[in-house]
């Protein structure tokens, strides 16, 4: 069996392009990747025919052993139809994702995010405690110091709670099954959004999952004007946990 090198090279290039597109986060790119990858693999199926011959039609004057093998073509046709159906589904899903979350990017799993958040929370708490102990060893017990330590810990806990509540909110949609199934206009979703949520960005979707989490809110992180920026670093720094690059936001990236 001889195989055309051009077919193989084309299949390899298309597969490589498709595979790298599949590794991205945006559903639209993934969709394109699926199309390109599917085409590459269909070429590969065709390449298994060997060298090209006559059209595989059976009539009186056909020379049987010069006819192209029809079976790979049938397989490729089946695969094309299936790719078409899957592409249509992916397209619908990307549009739906855009409709309900305002983006077509795939977010991290909620459970995974919560697990990561828990680990981050424990780390930060330990760090705070260590710094508090260091500071206490250096300066002795100081009521202001311990009050600030407690305040920092409270803020940390509150942020975890907010993140959790935010996750729960992100799970909700409009609640109207008709809208959910048919897909309402973004306008309707915006109205639903103004009912339930405080986000005024005007994105479509009742609870945009990728709108910055509570910790990423500029108001939130800038809300501590009295955070003693001039003090030295051995004090427990209250604005440390409010770092905008903190635990909760990493999960969405």
């Amino acid at each position: 069996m001889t195989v055309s090198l051009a077919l193989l090279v084309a299949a390899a290039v298309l597969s490589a392009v498709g595979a790298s597109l599949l590794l991205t986060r945006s559903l639209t790119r993934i969709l394109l990747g699926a199309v390109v990858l599917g085409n590459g693999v269909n070429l590969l199926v065709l390449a298994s025919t060997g060298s090209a011959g006559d059209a595989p039609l059976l009539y009186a004057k056909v020379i049987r052993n010069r006819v192209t093998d029809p079976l790979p073509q049938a397989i490729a046709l089946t695969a094309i139809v299936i790719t078409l159906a899957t592409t249509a589904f992916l397209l619908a899903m990307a549009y739906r994702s855009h409709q309900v979350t305002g983006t077509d990017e795939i977010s991290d799993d909620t459970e995974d995010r919560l697990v990561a958040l828990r680990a981050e929370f424990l780390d930060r708490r330990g760090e705070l405690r260590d710094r508090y102990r260091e500071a206490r060893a250096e300066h002795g017990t100081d009521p202001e110091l311990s009050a600030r330590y407690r305040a920092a810990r409270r803020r940390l806990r509150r942020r975890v709670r907010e993140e959790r509540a935010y996750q729960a909110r992100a799970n909700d949609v409009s609640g109207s099954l008709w809208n959910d199934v048919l897909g309402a206009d973004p306008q309707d979703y915006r109205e639903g959004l103004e009912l339930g949520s405080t986000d005024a960005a005007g994105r479509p979707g009742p609870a945009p999952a990728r709108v910055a989490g509570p910790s990423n809110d500029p108001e939130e992180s800038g809300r501590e004007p009295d955070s003693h920026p001039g003090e030295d670093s051995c004090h427990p720094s209250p604005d440390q946990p409010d770092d905008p690059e903190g635990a909760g936001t990493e999960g969405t990236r």
Partner: protein
Amino acid sequence: MNALVPLPVLLPLCVTGLKLAIGPRIQRFQRFITLAVLGAVLVLSVLLMVAADRHGPLSVHLGDFAPPIGITLVADRLAGLMLTVSSAVTLLVNLYSLGQGMADRDDQTPVGVFHPAYLILVAGVSCTFLAGDLVNLYVGFEIMLVASFVLLTIGGTVTRIRAGSTYVIISLFSSVLFLVAIAMTYSVAGTVNFAQLAGRLQEVPLGVRTLLEAMLLTVFAIKAAVFPLAAWLPDSYPTAPAPVTAVFAGLLTKVGVYSMLRTQTLLFPGHRLGDVLMLAALASMVVGILGAVAQTDLKRVLSFTLISHIGYMVFGIALAGRGSIGGAIVYVAHHITVQTTLFLVAGLIERRDGTTELTRLGGLAKTAPVLSALFFVPAMNLAGIPPLSGFIGKLGLMRAGVDNGGGWAWALVAGSAATSLLTLYVMAKVWNLAFWRDAPPGTEGEGVVLESAGDEPGDEPGDESGDDEDGGATGSGSGLPVPAGAVVSAGFLGQSITTTKRLPWPMLAATGAAVALGLLYTVLSGPLTSFTDAAAAELLARTPYIEAVLGR
């Protein structure tokens, strides 16, 4: 008799067309024909199993085209048993979904989505079990997958779209890999028919044959969620509605296991990747069950035990002896039933308390004794407590491992014993948290929605399940405090779910029947093990299958 072979695929597909033609108009008739066709498939499957047991494998060439060109469907003992178990399970799950009122919402949607997709899923599963060539296996997978995409993302909520994305992309990738494997096989052997491949692959150079084996194993391991390729499963399954998760957990992964069993015995006898498979089996068992230990949501716990117990079946396939293959077949049948039952029970708990989060459940043993019994039996069955079928499957596999006597085999025996104990631990943990302890104070009623907004009794077409929901709702109205505004905001997983203290009888009856089916394996363990032993012998001998297809 041979003419019956294509019917388990054709019947559901034709009825799907009929249902779509009827549209959402006659709800009762729609439900009746779904149940009727699933019952017919069950009867057919039993007939095929008995016939394959008596007369050897049945095969049919569609359109009477000879093997390399035509499509071949084969029903041997293994396929017959798988068909029977899967159609029994799908019938029960459908009954359950009717009780849950999933179909009740069909009248609100333009075209009833759930039942047609469900029937296509059944057709796809039957098609993979009956497939006599690689391409038909691929097509069966695709039918099943496209239907499962629809079922998994039904309702199109945020979480389901997210979970669906993972699932769709993984499935798409494994399908593409499968297609590459088919192209390679065809260019090497000039056929995709299993029976012809069984002969021709022996003449192929060893390296190429191993490459083909590795490709096919990778594809099926993704479908079956064997450990390094299983990360998609706990991400995607738990978000779907309970009946969907149940049927996915029971059937879809087992279809991958079945394909592995078929290709490893028929195409690659004396295979060289046995050690790799054993390592994957051990890793699946241990990592999966450790994942289950760490989870606190019942559906996620069950997803991880699913990955873990796939390891047992891969263990049996990897050893490739008559005893181990027989044990693996028993285990597949047992696990389809038990895993589905457990997910159905999780759905019942969700229906009753609005959540499956174990930290928010409690006291169910006192308040819902029937539900507790329905959970307890399959949980113990999964862990492998002696009289139950899980024990029979594990015993067969371990005995095969000890008989094999290799270092890997002993490691796997030890690993499977440890996994069994850890499964018992996980199930005991679930039992303690959700059933045995007192209900945690202040959690009851929080986030629980009594009736979802669009689910007024007036919308119901006036059938028995609608009546049940009414009764349940009035019964629970006094019991649960509803926080103000909870109906809209406290939806669970993106959909306001209906919770009722009194569970609808079709749901309870279906779950009870599934539990009883699991117990039936114990009662019939003698005939079952002799049947699977015969099936394993038939698989390893290969000649009955090849002769039935090629007619020599």
